[in-house]
């Protein structure tokens, strides 16, 4: 299937000379939830701004639904909704006026029924006549989401939607995003919170220092990069690790009643089978076996903090 967003060779160098994005190639599939994960300053907002027409790329092309974002900007932008990272709303307007404004601005016929339902879905209905100024931060964020959805976009960008948002709103937001996806909307969100990506996303892209370091289907990612720990619970304590098992770098714990093996599940050579076979040969009896997969957070940290050979810091 043709991807809904196709990014080829997008680079961005700010006027300050800062290279915010190195050539980026990325495809987003129709109807998926894509999480863009990266530390502060990685270039997430820059990338989203370029796709949405807020910043100009220094090089490269982006197409949405096969339409070029520059040449066919009208059709493209009609399909896109953006919830920005910063809480930027015109303070003196009422909630209702501001969502109506957004809908018209994006060239849509007024549809008060749709907007009423939207506000109800976002628990904003009772605030519809309030001035935005008088709303709390979390409520303002809901207003931004309502504005982004006012023109019924088919692609929704959420730039750190849960920054400064309480647990309840976060839960509401997730159920809303699932509903959107159910209706065929493609959702791209950025986040620092790994659990969010882990909970929500179908695919995850990790961006660091302006480069996409990895794009992977979430489960595949966790499998592929997952550091795993296997623990054998022994029937009789072992005084020390048998010499025959030396090559596996095992550890003993629980006074010799548990044998711990750390391995990478993606590496076929390492797998657990050879070790278990050896353990069998040595007649070490065990009554239980458990494996634990490291969380996405651990994967992420290992990706972002690994030494980066392409970094400019390396050049004198």
């Amino acid at each position, binding site marked *: 299937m043709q991807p809904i967003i196709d990014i080829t060779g997008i680079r961005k160098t700010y006027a300050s000379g800062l290279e915010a994005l190195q050539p980026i190639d990325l495809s987003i599939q129709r109807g998926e939830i894509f999480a863009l994960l990266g530390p502060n300053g990685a270039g997430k907002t820059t990338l989203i701004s370029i796709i949405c027409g807020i*910043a100009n790329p220094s090089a490269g092309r982006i197409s949405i639904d096969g339409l070029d974002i520059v040449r066919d900007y009208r059709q493209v932008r009609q399909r896109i909704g953006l919830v920005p990272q910063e809480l930027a709303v015109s303070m003196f307007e009422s909630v209702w006026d501001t969502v109506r404004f957004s809908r018209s601005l994006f060239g849509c016929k007024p549809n008060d029924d749709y907007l009423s339902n939207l506000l109800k879905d976002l628990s904003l209905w009772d605030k519809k006549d309030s001035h935005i100024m008088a709303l709390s931060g979390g409520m303002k964020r809901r207003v931004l989401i309502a504005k982004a959805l006012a023109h019924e976009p088919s692609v929704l960008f959420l730039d750190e939607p849960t920054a400064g948002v309480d647990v309840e709103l976060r839960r509401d937001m997730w159920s809303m995003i699932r509903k959107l996806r159910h209706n065929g909307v493609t959702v791209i969100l950025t986040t620092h919170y790994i659990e969010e990506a882990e909970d929500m996303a179908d695919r995850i892209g990790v961006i660091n220092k302006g480069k996409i370091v990895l794009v992977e289907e979430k489960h595949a990612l966790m499998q592929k990069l997952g550091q795993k720990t296997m623990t054998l619970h022994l029937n009789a304590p072992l005084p020390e690790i048998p010499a025959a098992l030396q090559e596996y770098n095992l550890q003993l714990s629980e006074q010799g009643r548990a044998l711990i093996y750390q391995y990478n599940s993606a590496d076929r050579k390492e797998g657990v089978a050879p070790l278990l076979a050896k353990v069998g040969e040595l007649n070490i009896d065990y009554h239980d076996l458990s494996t634990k997969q490291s969380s996405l957070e651990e994967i992420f940290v290992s990706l972002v903090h690994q030494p980066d050979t392409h970094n400019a810091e390396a050049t004198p």
Partner: protein
Amino acid sequence: MNGYGIKAIYLFELARTWRTLMQSIASPVLSTSLYFIVFGSAIGSRIVEIDGIHYGAFIIPGLIMLTILTESTSNASFGIYMPKFTGTIYEILSAPVSALEIVIGYVGAAATKSVILGLIILVTARCFVDYSIAHPLWMLAFLMLTCLTFSLLGFLIGLWAKSFEQLQIIPMMVITPLTFLGGSFYSISMLPEFWQKVTLFNPVVYLVSGFRWSFYGAADVHIGISLAMIAIFIAIFSALIAWIFHTGYKLRP
């Protein structure tokens, strides 16, 4: 053409005026009244007539110009500067509206407001002096064209400005002095010959003169030159705005 989009921006901007009604309408009316009292009464008692026109009536076109030039500029510049300042510009930039449509929305609203303001001052003036308008249609045309021209200038300043100081510096340091020196309160034929020549470099002279012609049929310079001047300004300001949008200069990083 995104008609809904233009309308949304236009109405949003007019609503902003409505929210600040006192400040937008009342204060220019008040200051105009003060001008009438000070200039019309104090100076008018010394200068009775200029070019056969009662002095109080003579200054009406200039007073209207004074207000609409500053109001058009500051209003239009504020209108586009605020979203840049607060960050709400993101929505405009990401919307399916062309540069032209954005300009029509913002500049159209600022110009509309100034035209209304000009007409209010005209009515206010009636409380102080008697006047007649020789060419009412030309008067309206001049009023609208001038409001448009200076709303374009204001929009340009708002796009360019990086701070509130920059926003105010051009209306304060350039437009107000040029208007005062542009024959609002006197006929340039009253100046020594040398200063008459210098004055001709002041573009506001042509606006005031043309506008006054539409009232009283008398002008310092030919009406054709006034119209040509307005056309040149509109062309320059529009070209600069188009260039800013085209390059993204100061608008899209």
